[in-house]
């Protein structure tokens, strides 16, 4: 149903835009891949289902002409954050929003079928039916969704020009969003250190996390590679890798829209979003600020208040 409505809407936005960024089936049935669709063709390729995981808004800042983009609720926060930070011109983006009840984590689906080769995948209501050599397995989307879906507060896009279907309200408690952060914090310092050293030790420095991150704006001046300043060497120690990931996280303080792209794209399955989420939790506490929620907000790191209610100043 939604797919048909989406296709209709896409036809409506032409010729106002030259390109619509949406999803199409990828190299196998489990993967979708971005489709940069133009007026003339390819309508048949457009898909919308729980396999449409990628946050397509990441491409927006590099687009020089007016484009339309299809967004889920979570993805739409990126657009709002772009607007707050002046990274896109809203007049150059047509937003086609889709209320979303959750997508799947490809990694979790693969785990659920014991990493066997996928023969077929069908999306039926709130399940995905995955066929492997061992037969068909029906997985509830809620059993294999990325962690962000489990606490989703924005099932309906927060900003859109067209909405496909009816808006839906979140049924997840707001307090649940940072529950995982608080739980992780109950571990001892040593345990946490060992955890991150082990996880970041797996990093191959491919920078998929950085390049997939819609909010990474340093582009070709990233500290990961610059020789001036020369803050990180090209060595492969856990220390160097950790340094990069820490700086990446700090750069996203009060900016990370929690889309989870960094973690989704990691070929080594490193939980790279964990620290970013912790920092966001702190930003929420200190400034009562939620990223990508309201285009009129000012990100806390973009402004300065002499008296911050929750920050104790040194009394000089």
């Amino acid at each position, binding site marked *: 149903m939604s797919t048909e409505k989406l296709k209709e809407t896409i036809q409506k936005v032409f010729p106002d835009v030259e390109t619509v960024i949406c999803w199409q089936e*990828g190299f196998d049935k489990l993967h979708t891949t971005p489709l940069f669709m133009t007026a003339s*063709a390819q309508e048949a390729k457009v898909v919308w289902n729980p396999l449409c995981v990628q946050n397509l808004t990441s491409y927006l800042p590099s687009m020089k002409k007016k484009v339309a983009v299809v967004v889920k609720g979570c993805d739409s926060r990126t657009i709002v954050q772009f607007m707050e930070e002046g990274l896109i011109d809203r007049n150059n983006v047509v937003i086609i929003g889709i209320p979303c009840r959750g997508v799947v984590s490809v990694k979790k689906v693969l785990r659920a079928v014991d990493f066997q080769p996928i023969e077929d995948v069908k999306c039926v209501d709130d399940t995905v039916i995955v066929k492997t050599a061992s037969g068909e397995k029906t997985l509830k989307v809620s059993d294999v969704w990325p962690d962000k879906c489990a606490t989703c507060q924005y099932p309906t896009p927060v900003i859109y020009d067209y909405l496909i279907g009816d808006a839906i309200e979140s049924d997840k408690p707001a307090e649940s969003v940072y529950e995982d952060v608080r739980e992780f914090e109950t571990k001892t310092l040593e345990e946490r250190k060992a955890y991150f050293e082990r996880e970041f030790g797996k990093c191959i420095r491919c920078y998929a996390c950085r390049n*997939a991150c819609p909010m990474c704006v340093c582009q070709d001046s990233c500290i990961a*590679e610059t020789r001036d300043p020369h803050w990180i060497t090209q060595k*492969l120690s856990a220390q160097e890798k950790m340094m990069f990931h820490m700086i990446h996280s700090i750069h996203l303080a009060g900016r990370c829209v929690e889309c989870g792209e960094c973690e989704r794209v990691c070929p080594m399955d490193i939980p790279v979003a964990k620290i970013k989420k912790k920092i966001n939790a702190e930003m929420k506490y200190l400034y009562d600020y939620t990223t990508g929620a309201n285009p009129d907000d000012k990100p806390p790191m973009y402004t300065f208040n002499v008296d911050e209610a929750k920050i104790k100043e040194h009394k000089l």
Partner: protein
Amino acid sequence: MAKTGFLPKEKIKDFLDALSKDAQVHVPVKEGDIVAFKPYSADAEICLTRPANTSPKAVIYPQCDKLLSFEYTKDPEDNKKTSITLSDKRDYPNAVIFGCRPCDAKGFTIFDKVFVTADYVDPYYREHREKTTIISLACETPFAGCFCVAVDGGPADKVGSDVLMTDVEKGYYLESLTEKGDKVLSLPMIQEGASYQAAAQKIQTEAAAKVKNPLPKGATEKVNPTLFDTDEFWQQVAAKCISCGACTYLCPTCYCFNITDEAARDKGERIRTWDACMFQHFTLETSGHNPRPVKSRRLRQRVGHKFAYYPEKYDGVIACCGCGRCIRHCPVSVDISEIVGYLKDPGQDPKTWIERNTKAAKDGSL
């Protein structure tokens, strides 16, 4: 006649322990949900049921390789005089790669042409290569993105391996392919293999039939130069690429590197590290000029290197082993086999291709 043998599954540990006596043994280890090549240890959870996320290339061609170390010393008598001490002491241990796939092993033969048999020999690579024994495991089934048969390979291809193992249920049928392989097969736990040959052959043949071939015109068909030189084609196929290095770093045949001096205070190291042609910096020149300033040009380089320039230079050999990692693990599912499929279709007319596949991204931003 190649030497053959049989390794019962319950003897794998004994086998690896025996190999470990005079070599570092690298095995595919399960770490959480991923599989990566790690030095063998008794508590490592070895995973042979799916290809590793990473290729084993780092064993022979380390991601970070110290070429030399240096230290500056000031003359205590004259502060203006500084001397430098260099040390290029290196260690080349005997190594074994166990449980890689035939495509992984073939990857090293692509390196050999550049680093060993070329006009300029790379001594670091050559030493590691000579001291490494490769024991591959034939694939019974293709995994997402696999296309070895399309690039002159196969799930039981023997090129590059010293020993090829085939899983025949209770154990592995072993075929020795080199002198190094003969040595492996002479270990005491290796049993007589001849009786398993037929079973292994059947598995190998069946596996080959299961692998998809996205290049039906044949691996030898050259890329279509007109389409290859069409910018719009590359803009279209590269539109979704995010310019990360996942494809190149996981690739068993990508060998481009960078050399940097990493110093702190008065001493440091000159290291060679993997580089990736997908990165913006890759061809950035000191002047500030970048001959490949946009990602479409960079993707063209990656595909061109593997399927056009390398074959031109090395007798038609394709610098891709079809392992599928770059497809399987690409953050945005860029499919190199699809791109090459277009390029190798001799009837492909650039105009028609672009019309059919639309004319997206003409704004130069891609």
